[in-house]
């Protein structure tokens, strides 16, 4: 699990390895599950409208599948260019 920008600062780590339970198979379920990990996670993920998810370096939505072994990243809306 990779975190960028203020999500990284709020979660407190840039990277962590997690072991998804068997019943967490979608991005949406993963986000709900991540919130329970710590107060920092709960705060960082409080407003999901400003959280973007990438699975294996492609943008993913709530319904998209996710599994252990995937490269998952969470970050705010991008502001490059």
């Amino acid at each position, binding site marked *: 699990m*990779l975190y*960028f*920008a*203020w999500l990284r600062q709020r979660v407190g780590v840039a990277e962590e390895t997690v072991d998804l339970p068997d019943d967490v198979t979608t991005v949406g379920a993963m986000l709900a599950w991540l919130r329970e990990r710590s107060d920092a996670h709960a705060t960082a993920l409080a407003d999901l409208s400003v959280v973007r998810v*990438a699975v294996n*370096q*492609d*943008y993913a939505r709530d319904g998209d599948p996710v599994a252990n072994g995937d490269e998952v*990243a969470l*970050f*705010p*809306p*991008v*502001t*490059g*260019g």
Partner: protein
Amino acid sequence: MIRVQREDFDIGAELEALTAGNHRIGGIATFVGTVRDIADGRPISTMTLEHYPGMTEKQLGAIEQEARQRWDLESCLIIHRYGRLEPGERIVMVATTSAHRAAALESCAFLIDWLKTKAPFWKLEETDGGAQWVDAHPTDEDAAARWSDPSKS
């Protein structure tokens, strides 16, 4: 061609390389983004660009492919910097070349508009009031969205 780098770049040299020897080119369109010294009325001392190595290259590559599918381009370049930048410094350069000017101009605007909403970069601005992450602009989504609507492109 895609480059993600910490170092500055030389616009003239990049365009020279992009066009050298290709006499099918009739138009070259370029956009360069630079660091402004002010944001929302507050002076900015420096800006730090964070990015997601790997995904950045993947997304920029996909954006270039999309442009090449939509327009008949001779060549295409995207350079995006990361790291610490001061006001006046170059952040990004996109350039497209084509036989015809409309293809070059439109694809150049497309590239920078899409890049703004898809390439995983985040700006941290340092002002007198401390460091602050730049919020995404809704107008950036609008600018990118017009390329999704076939009636407007």
